[in-house]
């Protein structure tokens, strides 16, 4: 009778893999050859992808406009510092809150939309915002970037240096804390309700579930996390330009999440590792050929690794060990 308790407990428990994952990031800090600036980028993309995972992997809503929230957070952090509020931690939280509020409003707008219409509306709204920001050069500095962005030292002590040591630890700490909260959230009844609405909204209605409220909330949460990722970018690079809001970025994060695997929360990081690492590799060669390989990865992923790299790798690992049911991972199909 208590096996069902164990079943649920297993899904909530931290696995060895998870602990190893986060430990690896800490260890990387102490390795002298680590490119900390690049690793920070990967973490930020990873967190950004995790924000989309809440929407796509858990709630089943595809979006072509996630960069809008990322950019809102990025610019909020920039404007705060420009107007004298240079403390990073509170700046991060405020940026997340602003993006979150916009997300709540967006949640009300996209209710009832599916498939292509949903993609087009998110795309359209994102493009509107990008266009506005890019053209309003007096307000935003346009493509040259917002002038006057400078961030005070973290906790008053750790300055943001050129090498990126402070930036890396700050980003890692923020990502970890946010991730822990999200992890708890998706293991809660709210997380299960998201999965239910993803699988069958009609059945959720007949269970009395407030699916509209849940959708608005997850949109707000997703936006807040994306906003915080954006703020981290601004704070660690002390720069923000319209590119953070671009459709390119929205498409990139969608690609990253799908390649990594949606619905597992860690897929975003796996995808970011693959994507950024490869992009960095190809930047040295001719950048236009980068598109070929990422396109190929995408085609291969949807053809063979329907659920992404993370479940494919996990599946390979599980088959190396005994095939019995050891730890039922959260069964999720993107």
């Amino acid at each position, binding site marked *: 009778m208590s096996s069902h308790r164990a079943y649920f407990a297993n899904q909530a428990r931290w696995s060895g893999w998870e602990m190893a994952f986060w430990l690896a990031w800490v260890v990387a800090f102490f390795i002298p050859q680590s490119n900390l600036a690049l690793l920070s980028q990967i973490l930020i993309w990873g967190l950004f992808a995790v924000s989309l995972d809440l929407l796509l992997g858990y709630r089943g809503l595809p979006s072509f406009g996630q960069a809008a929230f990322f950019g809102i957070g990025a610019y909020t952090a920039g404007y705060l510092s420009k107007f004298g509020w240079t403390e990073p931690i509170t700046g991060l939280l405020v940026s997340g809150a602003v993006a979150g509020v916009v997300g709540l409003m967006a949640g009300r707008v996209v209710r009832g*939309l599916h498939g292509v*219409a949903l*993609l087009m509306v998110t795309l359209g709204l994102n493009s509107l915002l990008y266009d*506005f920001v890019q053209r309003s050069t007096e307000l935003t500095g346009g493509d040259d970037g917002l002038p006057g962005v400078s961030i005070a030292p973290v906790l008053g002590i750790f300055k943001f240096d050129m090498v990126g040591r402070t930036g890396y630890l700050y980003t890692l700490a923020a990502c970890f804390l946010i991730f822990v909260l999200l992890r708890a959230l998706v293991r809660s009844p709210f997380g299960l309700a998201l999965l239910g609405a993803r699988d069958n909204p009609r059945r959720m209605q007949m269970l009395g579930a407030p699916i509209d409220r849940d959708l608005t909330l997850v949109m707000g949460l997703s936006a807040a996390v994306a906003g915080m990722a954006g703020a981290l970018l601004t704070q660690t690079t002390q720069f923000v330009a319209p590119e953070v809001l671009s459709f390119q970025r929205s498409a990139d994060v969608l690609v990253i999440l799908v390649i990594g695997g949606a619905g597992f929360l860690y897929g975003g990081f796996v995808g970011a590792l693959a994507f950024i690492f490869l992009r960095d590799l190809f930047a040295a060669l001719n950048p236009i050929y980068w598109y070929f390989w990422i396109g190929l990865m995408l*085609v291969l992923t*949807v053809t063979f690794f329907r659920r992404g790299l993370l479940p494919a790798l996990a599946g390979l690992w599980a088959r190396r060990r005994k095939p019995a049911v050891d730890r039922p991972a959260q069964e999720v199909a993107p």
Partner: protein
Amino acid sequence: MSIALTMLFNGLTYGVLLFVMAVGLSVTMGMMNFANLAHVSLAMLGGYLAITAMDHLGVSFLLSLPLAFLGTMAFSWVLERLVLRHFYGTDDLTQVLLTIGLLFMSVSTVAYIWGPSFKPITMPASLSGQVQVMGLSLERYRLFLLAVGIALALALVFGLERTRFGAMVRACVDNRRAASGCGLNIQRIFALTFAIGGGLAGLGGALAANLLTIDPNFPLRYLIYMLIVVSVGGMGSVAGTLLASVVIGIGDVVGKYYVPQAGGIMIYLVTVVIMLVRPQGLMGRAA
């Protein structure tokens, strides 16, 4: 006043160009519910084929048009048979991601074959310069474009309404299962429709070479326009695509001329509003 009319005319012809490029996508999305974002890459291919035919085979511009059509049509046929048809049953997002992947690959492949910079095209004298029409100074090429576009639209409507194949296409768009139940070979019909639609995209790309820039990044710039025109017009509807193309074309040109700070905002605004008010598009079937 004459400037306004000229802008209107320019927007109209731009819209007609978008129509030729996008109509194939609308019909295949309406018929098979298959979101092929790589459609815009087919337009690019047509542009490159036309330019290559003119540069390396010495073919005239007018002759390069049917060559672009046929070449892209053949390529579309192969693409559909080899790759795309395996994904018909999958969900929207999978199709979107697959075809975006193909789009990315096309950008690099084209850069590899034809080089990264844009390809210029020279028009014959008969299509260059301007001509006076009713007190307005209109570009000859745009008049030509308008004529071709109208002819194509009429041909498509005639083809769909009056020919047997057209009736089969309409049946499949309306109700695939019922059409199949009537004995129609929908796989074959779709393969042929897809090929023709792809050919039209290629033709559109060839026609676009003189107005828009043909370079490897073409799909990245114009994907959004394709999607907007198809979703606003309503999938599966030729008339809807034409209407949406003209509205978007005029809106974009007129908007950018009169309110340059607003930039592309007009078309995005129109898209968002229409998608919220009427998600199936102006002339699409309600879900």
